[in-house]
């Protein structure tokens, strides 16, 4: 198993201090190399779930096991390193650093892991996403589709076990959508990386063998005011 969530609870707080339950997942699992699309309406907690899986947010309770490690038990410093080394991220808004070239953005992905920066591997990733000739270009000089391809290359820089993609095609034109999607799925298959892609677009989700609706396994109960008071 590559990803296992058990009894995960995550609440936010309303401005008045009332807890706002966002995640209440009894169990959710992905096996090694599996690719799943996670769909859900806007505001249903998709991004929070990804943040919890990646260790950016800690759940209030429950276990998040990635590649056999319960990351909720790790100290923050170790969790950060675990994220750098085992989890790849593709964001909706690409999140490339504007002052860095395409190649440097990929290398940045390697900087925070214990592995040495492997320039040759970074170049091969850019080549794989079709940007061999654009590696010295900064994001500002790349098209939106190219930027997302750099972001895909960066997410694979540390050979992660799990790739989390948060609406990676939402900001890309339709022509590039398929290409990006294929690229992510193919590279994950080639490297046996488990893929969890969050999307609200049904046409994107259709391309996956496994499609999960967040509402089906996430049932946060609204807090009872009496209990709080």
């Amino acid at each position: 198993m590559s990803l296992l969530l058990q009894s995960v609870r995550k609440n936010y707080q309303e401005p008045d201090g009332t807890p706002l339950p966002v995640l209440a997942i009894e169990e959710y699992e992905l096996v090694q190399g599996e690719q799943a699309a996670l769909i859900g309406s806007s505001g249903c907690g998709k991004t929070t779930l990804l943040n919890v899986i990646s260790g950016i947010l800690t759940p209030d309770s429950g276990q998040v096991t990635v590649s056999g490690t319960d990351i909720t038990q790790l100290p923050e410093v170790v969790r950060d390193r675990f994220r750098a080394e085992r989890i790849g991220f593709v964001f909706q808004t690409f999140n490339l650093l504007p002052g860095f070239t395409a190649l440097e953005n990929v290398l940045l992905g390697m900087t925070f892991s214990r592995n040495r920066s492997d320039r040759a591997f970074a170049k091969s990733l850019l080549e794989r996403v079709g940007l061999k000739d654009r590696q010295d270009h900064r994001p500002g000089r790349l098209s939106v589709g190219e930027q997302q391809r750099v972001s895909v290359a960066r997410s694979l820089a540390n050979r992660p076990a799990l790739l989390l993609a948060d609406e990676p095609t939402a900001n890309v034109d339709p022509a590039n959508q398929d290409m990006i999607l294929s690229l992510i799925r193919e590279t994950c298959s080639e490297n046996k990386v488990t893929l969890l892609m969050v999307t609200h677009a049904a046409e994107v989700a259709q391309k996956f063998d496994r499609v999960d609706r967040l509402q089906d396994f996430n049932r946060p109960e609204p807090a009872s005011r009496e209990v709080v008071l």
Partner: protein
Amino acid sequence: MNLFTIAWKSIRQRGLASSLTALSVALGVMLMVVVLVISGALRAVFSQNTIAYDLIVGPKGSGLQLVLSAVYRVQPAIENLPYLYYLELKEDRRVVSAVPMAFGDVTEQGSFPLVGTTPEYFENEYAPGSTFRIRGKRINANFDAIIGAEVARSNGWDIGSQFKIVHGGADGTHIHDEQFTVVSVLQQTGTPNDRTVFVNIEGFYAIEGHETPLNEVEERLKKFYASSSDRLKIALDQIAEARALDEAESASGHGGHHHHHATPDAAKEVTAILIRTRPKSPFDAINLSSDLQQGYQAMAVNPIVPIRKLMTDVLGNVQQGLLVLTVMIILVSGISIFVSIYTSMTDRRREIGIMRALGARRGSVFGIVLAESVVLCVGGGLLGWLSGHGIAVIASPFVTAETGLLLDPWVVYWMKFTVFNFEIELPVESVLFPMLLALATLVGFLPAMTAYRTDVADALSS
């Protein structure tokens, strides 16, 4: 890619703000280096290494004025001493060398001071361990001259050049008729000798108008030797002899026409006497000095004492003031670095979030922001240090040409620091960079803490 590379990229991204803040640090450090170089040069001029004499004897008055006139030749002479007194000092068993100096006139071209002295002046060291290197021949004739390197350079004079002198004093307009000829040129010494024209003291006396009227001399001798009747008698006898000679000349029909004959020693005067005492008798100078306090209308000063006082009282304070000013400039630059980085933190919140999402630890993003501050502070400091010394290297020949001040562009300025009750002396520049590092840490700390505390999920969704 390491944290410094990331920091450097961030600095480049904010190119204009970064360069301006680094430049302000550079400017502060550059000014500090220039202040240190200039004060180092002044210190060298006014240090004990400028003169290799133990005492300077002159008429009673201000010790500082005596040193400034006899050693630095920047002040007019106080008064004169009898030449006989010089001869007397020369015979003192405690005195190894006594060199007379007579001065007051300046060259017509360039207004360089003229000093009448004896060849002994050039045989002695001019500064501890440094002897004169002279190109040319010795002074033979009365109107032969040895000129300092700066005089030669500035006036374009060389061996064989001829010049006239202007009589000193308040008017300073009378040009003497005598024509002097340069017979030797001194090599640069970095001392006031470079800006001086030396003539034989006998030549100095031979200049028309340098002879004091005998009546006046007599009065001065009476005053000077007031408590030493034996010596006064010898001196007055010589004056009487000279007067008789003059009268005999007048009687023999030479009328108003003045004949230049040898001036008797009693009628000669010197402006100052440089004394070297026995090298292994440290008390000679003190004893001699206290002997002079009593008896004669003369004083002997250790050339170092009044100058050291001047250094501490005036130059020291000015230098300290300038250093404090430059430190303030550097501090203000530090604040501008703080403002620059701190205001950029709002824009960079997302970048920090991205790095954290990619696995950067809080400590790493803290380190990146701190590294930016260090690069700006220390990089700016290095730039300022190099440009400060660069300016000194470039300006040095011009400053020397204009002022005679020898600038050492790489002078090391030592300062006492007290650390945990231990007093240590360190070159100022060796503490400059640790101080810049401390400043960088101080001003970078708050922005770095902002980066440290960044909420990743918030930053990414912003």
